[in-house]
């Protein structure tokens, strides 16, 4: 294995030398993803597979165990959770042991990484194998339907309006549906599977370029898979699941392009432009993250931090009264001129003709154009979420609200103690291991600007963990993990490869690393997804040759058949999503349209009538089950036995009674769900 001894801030290696004590690998020196270019003999090729076939078989067995767990969960039988965790450990532990080992060849590491990532994707697919059941998936499913039916982009999505303004995912999926004759569900599964593959390959490639070590690259992929959102959230049919892998690919291409030995930099630049464009039209946060990383990288390459340090010194001298304000301004102007001049000089000397600034500016301008002319409402959407997070943090500091209790859901469900131990233990492992990685960065990679950016991301991840205590900020912290883990995974991988337990028995080190990595992975699952949703739930029941659907699906199917699509229907969070996708109605849900207030109001007064008239509501779907307000669990048959975290109760009868007494038609009734025709109530103009 070779390591980078010295590089400049663009990450270009000055020289390469084997690290003391490292065992050389026959295939380590191969170029990026040069799987097909190896010149090894057929025996070597067979050897290059290493333990991959055996580990693939073990992981297949593990998937079988998880499938059995899903079966038990659907049947409501005990032991399902145990099988799930057994399967997860069976997948992770062998891969962790092998990837942490120094023995595998580069090809084996790459194959292991790919297999691991795809096996974990299968875990999600097995979680909901009959259709989309995650809250966000319904919105993007609707967007695909819109493109297919109207043959145009930017359709209407009343549940999550901005999702329609990022047509990357739905347009690709719709293309697959049109070309391949697949259902939207299976086209979506394929698109996200491809995205997952891109993520693994791009991350491996990026980490390998930065570290010159396939071992670090393989471990980076493994550790990244431990981020709380990798197993479920980023495997769902959602725009981030597609965009984030493309961001990593942009970084990998951009870094590869910096190498002076790289051929055809123009082609690479064009490829990067195309991928950047794809990210910008696919997902807002991913594009902002991409711009932020490229910007930080560019500034570090340009040694902007030196300008900042000198600026701070000058500011202090001004504050001390040693220089006048005008002198400080003059200095600032001069420093800016020097900075620009130095940049021009390096450009003239072709020293940095391949620095990331061009890609950064392209990404920045494209993102701003998209934001200004296509998706301006993103500002309000993202701003509201981040604003709430900031307010929550400050309210917490101000003691105006109590901190969120960890491992307790909003519905009051408390996770078992062993999950507390796993979750907190994984954080402890990360905190302990991170300094090793940071030391490695400082000793060997501090001249590589992109590595420094990744190290900053790793440190930021620890900072973001504090937000988990703020009620409205924990989601921001959770969602940041899949972004910041890119840096954290790389730095931790560096740390893991640097750990040496010289005096311990030879098996202790690998065993500790394997246990640690498996623990961190399990901790990620605990932090990222509710316990009672990690296994499959009953979303359809076969009775003879008939398939029974949950009530909300039945109501939607009935509505499509009898009322037709395109009507404005008010509903709760889960029913609204089902109506959106299965009945093709213009569903209005949530607080934005005052639908929650309308549903929960004890009577139909001025405000409720005003809401009906203002939004010209044609129908309203009223679900008596409390679970219908839960946009994560409201799509399944309600468990017949009590399940922790599932609110199987009913609302007060007022919810229905106010419509019953309003002299309007009840056009559908399935027991818990009723649909009312609001024609008589909405006929008036909104009162002023």
């Amino acid at each position: 294995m070779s390591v980078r001894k010295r590089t400049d801030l663009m990450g270009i290696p000055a020289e390469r030398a084997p690290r003391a004590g490292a065992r050389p690998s026959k295939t380590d020196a191969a170029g990026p993803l040069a799987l097909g270019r190896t010149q090894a003999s057929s025996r070597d090729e067979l050897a290059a597979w290493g333990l991959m076939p055996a580990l693939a078989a073990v992981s297949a067995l593990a998937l079988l165990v998880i499938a059995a767990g899903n079966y038990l969960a659907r049947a409501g039988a005990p032991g399902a959770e145990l099988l799930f965790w057994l399967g997860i450990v069976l997948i992770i532990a062998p891969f962790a042991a092998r990837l942490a080992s120094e023995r595998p060849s580069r090809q084996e590491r790459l194959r292991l990484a790919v297999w691991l990532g795809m096996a974990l994707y299968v875990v999600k697919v097995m979680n909901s194998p009959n259709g989309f059941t995650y809250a966000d998936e319904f919105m993007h499913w609707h967007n695909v339907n819109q493109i297919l039916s109207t043959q145009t982009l930017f359709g209407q999505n009343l549940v999550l309006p901005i999702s329609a303004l990022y047509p990357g995912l739905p347009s690709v999926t719709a293309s697959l549906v049109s070309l391949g004759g697949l259902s939207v569900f299976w086209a979506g599964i394929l698109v996200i599977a491809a995205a997952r593959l891109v993520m693994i390959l791009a991350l491996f490639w990026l980490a390998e370029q930065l570290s010159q070590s396939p071992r670090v690259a393989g471990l980076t992929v493994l550790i990244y898979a431990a981020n709380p959102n990798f197993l479920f959230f980023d495997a769902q049919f959602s725009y981030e699941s597609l965009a984030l892998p493309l961001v990593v690919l942009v970084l990998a291409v951009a870094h590869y392009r910096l190498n002076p030995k790289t051929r055809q930099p123009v082609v690479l630049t064009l490829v990067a432009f195309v991928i950047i464009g794809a990210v910008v039209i696919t997902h807002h946060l991913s594009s902002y993250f991409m711009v932020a990383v490229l910007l930080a990288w560019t500034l570090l390459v340009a040694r902007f931090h030196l300008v900042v340090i000198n600026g701070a010194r000058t500011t202090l001298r001004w504050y001390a009264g040693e220089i006048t304000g005008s002198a400080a301004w003059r200095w600032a102007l001069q420093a800016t001129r020097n900075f620009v001049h130095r940049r021009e000089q390096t450009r003239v000397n072709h020293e940095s003709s391949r620095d990331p600034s061009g890609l950064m500016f392209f990404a920045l301008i494209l993102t701003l154009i998209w934001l200004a002319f296509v998706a301006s409402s993103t500002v309000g959407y993202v701003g509201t979420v981040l604003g709430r997070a900031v307010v929550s943090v400050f309210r917490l500091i101000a003691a105006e609200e109590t901190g969120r209790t960890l491992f307790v859901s909003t519905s009051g469900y408390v996770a078992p103690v062993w999950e507390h131990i796993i979750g907190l233990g994984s954080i402890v492992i990360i905190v302990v291991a991170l300094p090793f990685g940071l030391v490695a960065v400082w000793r060997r990679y501090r001249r590589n600007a992109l590595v420094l950016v990744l190290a900053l991301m790793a440190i930021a991840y620890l900072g973001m963990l504090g937000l988990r205590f703020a009620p409205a900020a924990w989601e921001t912290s959770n969602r940041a993990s899949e972004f910041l883990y890119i840096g954290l995974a790389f730095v931790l991988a560096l740390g893991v490869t640097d750990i040496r337990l010289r005096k311990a028995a030879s098996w202790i080190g690998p065993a500790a690393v394997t246990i640690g990595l498996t623990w961190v992975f399990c901790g990620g699952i605990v932090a990222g997804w509710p316990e009672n949703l990690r296994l499959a739930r009953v979303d359809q029941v076969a009775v003879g040759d008939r398939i029974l659907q949950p009530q909300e699906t039945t109501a939607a199917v009935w509505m499509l058949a009898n009322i037709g699509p395109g009507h404005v229907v008010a509903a709760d969070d889960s029913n609204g999503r089902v109506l959106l996708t299965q009945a093709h109605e213009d569903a209005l849900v949530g607080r934005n349209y005052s639908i929650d207030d309308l549903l929960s109001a004890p009577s139909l007064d001025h405000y409720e009538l005003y809401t009906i008239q203002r939004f010209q509501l044609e129908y309203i779907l009223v679900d008596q089950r409390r679970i219908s307000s839960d946009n994560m669990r409201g799509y399944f048959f309600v468990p017949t036995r009590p399940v922790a975290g599932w609110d199987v109760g009913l609302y007060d009868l007022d919810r229905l009674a106010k419509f019953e007494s309003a002299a309007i038609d009840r056009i559908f009734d399935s027991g818990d769900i009723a649909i009312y025709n609001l024609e008589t109530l909405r006929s008036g103009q909104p009162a002023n």
Partner: protein
Amino acid sequence: MKLYFGSIVSALVVAALSGGALLWDGSYYLYSTLDTQAPFLPNNRYIAVVLETPVLLAFKVTNNIAILKAVFGLTYALVPLISLLLCWLIVRRSAPALFVWAALGFGFGTLMLQLHFIAEATLSVQLMWPVVLAALTPPRWWVRGVVILLSVAAFFSHPFALALFAVVAGLAAVIGWRYREQRLEKWLWAAGFVALAVVGLLRFSGIHTNYETDQISWQILLLHYQLALQGVPILAFSAVALALVVLYAMPYVRRVKLRWPLQLDGASLVMPLYAIELLCLAAAGALFVLWASIPELWADALDYRTWVLFMSLPFMGMAGLESLVRGPERTQGPQLEWKHRARTVQVVGVVFALVIVLQSLSWIQVTNQLQAAIDQSPGACVSMSALSDVPHTALSHWSLTPYSIILQGTVPSKVVLNGDCAAVNFTKGLPVAAWDLRPWTTGAFDMHVLFQNLAAKS
């Protein structure tokens, strides 16, 4: 000082034009003044006569509520501005370094209620700042006139002025004891302010209201601390406190540097202290900027009024301590020290401007939300419970009703009530406040449209 006063003037103008003076009970002050055509005098605080007369005069010229709001706000904005100018003029020649404490007092001590111009507690503190500085510096003929004028104004503003009279009396007595050449005059000042405090106390005991006496209790102080100060503001004040210590200690550190120049390198000793001081001020500024930007965070800032005196006294105390310990010739200070303090003043001015402008903008945003809610409301009476965003902002106050009236001009058609509209009987009048049932036919505001709308809905 141009940058400093430019920042202050800009911020105050923006705040006044944003309608900041109508925050909380400010809207009732304006509504009541205009509707009754007489200055509203809360708890016999006669300073309101002077400050509300301009808007009454303007009302004779125009009914435009935007202009009236601006006149009302700008009049009140003159108090901090004139007080600050007087502070500078008083110390400019004799002890310019002392101005930094006044700047910090205005910049942080009264900052949290600055947008709420009409708070008499704040006004009394701001009016007394020039008096405090005058007590610490050699007197001049015009300063004596200013001191008398401001003391009278403060006397009729808020009971806090009585405590401040006592503080000034104490400072004047000690300064007279410390500096022989000023002794007679300062001791006369001390006697005068003691007399003023006693008279004020007698007056207060004769005319005080239950509201005022209720505010003077440990429980209320604690409650108001929890509501207004706990959290972000107290963090910011902690940073300011550290900056104060460094600022005060800096001249002594310089002296150490001069005494042992070989052992202690000046740059290595002084620069980190400057850095700490600047970082503390920047941190306090950043915290207050965030506080001002998020309306929820300053929703209960009104309760700071019971703390404004106690949070301002340390700044006055530092000024007094410096005058006593270091003497007037030293507070003039070496040139470099004043240059440094001038920078401190500029930084404080910029922080003040940023905070006030951002708080004004967030107040405008909250007001726009209320306006939109009123416009969209189907009924003439809107219950506060129907306004989803109100409970977490400064609008969550009894003065929401008069504010909703003022927002619609002198002929309102709707009203927002604190309670439930369905539970109110509007036949006798409009409940503008718990103690103010306004008859429909009297007053300068034309309520007949509102009355008709309410009657139609009922």
